[in-house]
């Protein structure tokens, strides 16, 4: 982690994101937000309050409410970026990215390449991810789709510190960035609070700082097994590690912070020490990020691995509504513990 400056404040992730946007909008006239219900006076500040108050501060032109037109939003961001602006677009739920897929995959990601490097598309697309008893069309974690799109970067902050620092990096990045935020981590207040939310608060510097892309964070050090998780599953992994410590099992928990670029080396190094790897991910198993990470790491750390890499993921199903089924669907600390015990049986 980069050195933390002096003055800090305890913030939720929603607040940290808002701070990042505010500071960047103050710093750079080209930065603006567009999305649904983000700036309406008396409105929500977006589906999870992140832009609350910003239209009052910066005006409605720079916190631009759009029609319900996700392809239009993404396209507007692409075009505005091409014209020299720095758009921060958002969809209310990550599930709606599928409505904007052509603009994201075929336009945003490829414009630079198709022009032979003559143009660039500095845009951010924010998307709230994760299952929260809203069933199949409002609970997906579609970040894995985007690691398969050459030309976009993918960030996944799990702490308030990272949320602010990564979002600033994303805004300043000259390439398109998909920025996934987990609904249960926001810490949104009041009526927009989420049931079952974890809402980790953290000390966030009030000064300007950035968190670089492609540098994983070791959230807990350990010697017996490496657990790789992102967004919400970082916390599941940490909870499991806590419990397992009591059984005498020492877990190292790593948070990649960005999926593209992905910090293979930090994880590979950890595996060289622990010789075991468990990957925890809320994306459905087949074709998900956990599989990609396993494929890269079985190669990068071959010979060091004492056991097959174990994936703890959501199953290959849509997100169910019933809370009992959803609980089964989402990988939790018990699933992680079982996987850790299983890989350690190979010792």
């Amino acid at each position, binding site marked *: 982690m980069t050195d933390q400056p002096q003055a800090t404040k305890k913030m939720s992730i929603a607040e940290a994101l808002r701070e990042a946007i505010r500071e960047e909008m103050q710093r750079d006239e080209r930065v603006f937000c567009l999305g*649904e*219900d983000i700036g*309406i*006076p*008396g*409105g*929500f500040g977006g589906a999870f309050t992140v832009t609350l108050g910003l239209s009052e501060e910066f005006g409605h032109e720079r916190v631009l*409410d*759009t*029609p*319900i*037109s*996700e*392809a*239009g939003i993404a396209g507007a961001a692409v075009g505005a970026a091409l014209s020299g602006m720095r758009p921060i677009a958002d969809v209310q739920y990550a*599930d*709606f990215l599928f*409505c904007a897929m052509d603009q994201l995959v075929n336009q945003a990601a490829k414009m630079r390449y198709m022009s032979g490097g003559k143009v660039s598309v500095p845009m951010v697309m924010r998307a709230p991810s994760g299952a929260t*008893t*809203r*069933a*199949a*069309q*409002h609970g997906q974690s579609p970040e894995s789709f985007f690691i398969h799109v050459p030309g976009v970067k993918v960030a996944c902050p799990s702490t308030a510190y990272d949320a602010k620092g990564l979002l600033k990096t994303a805004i300043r990045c000259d390439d398109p960035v998909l920025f996934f935020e987990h609904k249960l981590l926001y810490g949104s207040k*009041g*009526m*927009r*609070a989420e*049931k079952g939310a974890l809402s980790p608060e953290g000390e966030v510097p009030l000064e300007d700082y950035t968190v670089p892309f492609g540098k994983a964070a070791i959230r807990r050090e350990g010697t017996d097994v490496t657990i790789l998780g992102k967004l919400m599953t970082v916390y599941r992994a940490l909870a499991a590690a806590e419990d397992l410590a009591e059984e005498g099992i020492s877990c190292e928990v790593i948070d990649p912070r960005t999926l593209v670029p992905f910090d293979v080396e930090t994880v590979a190094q950890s595996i060289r020490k622990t010789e075991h790897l468990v990957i925890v991910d809320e994306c459905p198993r087949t074709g998900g990020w956990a599989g990609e990470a396993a494929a890269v790491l079985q190669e990068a750390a071959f010979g060091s691995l004492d056991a097959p890499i174990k994936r703890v993921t959501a*199953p*290959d*199903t*849509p997100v*169910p*509504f*019933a*809370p*009992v*089924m*959803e*609980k*089964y*669907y989402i990988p939790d600390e018990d699933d992680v513990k079982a996987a850790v015990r299983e890989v350690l049986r190979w010792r």
Partner: protein
Amino acid sequence: MADPSPDRMLHMYRQMQRIRQFEEKVNQLFLEGRMPGTLHLYTGQEACAVGVAEALDEDDWVVGTHRPHGHAIAKGVTLDDMMAELFAKSTGCARGYGGSMHVGDPATGVLPAIAIVGGNIPVASGMALGFKMQKTGQVIACFMGDGALNEGAFHEGVNMAAIWDLPVVFVCENNLYGASTPVDQVTRLEKLSDRAAGYGIPGETVDGMDVLTVHGAAQRAVERARNGDGPTLLECLTYRFVGHSRSDTRSYRSRDEEAEWKARDAIPRLAAHMVERGITTQDEVDAIAAEVAAEIEASIEFAESSPSPAPEDCLKYVFTEEAGQ
């Protein structure tokens, strides 16, 4: 235009009461923490769903939105099935897999509601295409909000229905807001039904707070659809009396505006109309409301005493052949 038969009018009244009371109850259950998930209430818009559904035959279909309780109940999903679904029980209309935003029941001609704004429109056109190809004479009503009209899916789905003269009625419930966003901020049109002209189909705007008006317009549109004359875009001017979803304090609109629309509530309006014409008495109307209240209490009992799905049931129903993968 002539009123529907007294029986039908009384049934409409009952249906609107069912929707209203069902939602008042689930909202309460939800606030008490007894019900999981999220809720988009239809309160205030009952005339739209009921007016349209009553223009459909039993084997016709509807497909709803993220705000689908009204659509489903109006077309005949039972309160038991609805309540159990919202309680996430395996006796629910979607066995607890769908929840509030996906209620439906093929047995009553209700597709699982589609909560992607605009996403149900191409699907409705496709179903209508299937009806036409199979010459079944069926019609589908596709509900959407004012916000949905700006989705690309609206454009593609409506155009296809137009060029192939498909038996579908597009019902736009213009409640003046998409979530917090006023409709006049996202379109230059005064009348949303004017979008119909871009597809060469008829468009009509009606008072969505009067179930008889909605019903009349829906009948005409259904007839056109069934006769092979293609789709209609029917705009119903209406209002949701409540927030967009559970976490909405409605600060983006005025209490005056709300009061104005509440004064036009379709439910007492129909009651007054029927009583005025001597079709019924206030007592009979009150009795219907009381019967519905009892029905709803019974549905809660049914739901609460129903079994939950097993956790690992979440692995089912991905594919038709369970062992397929």
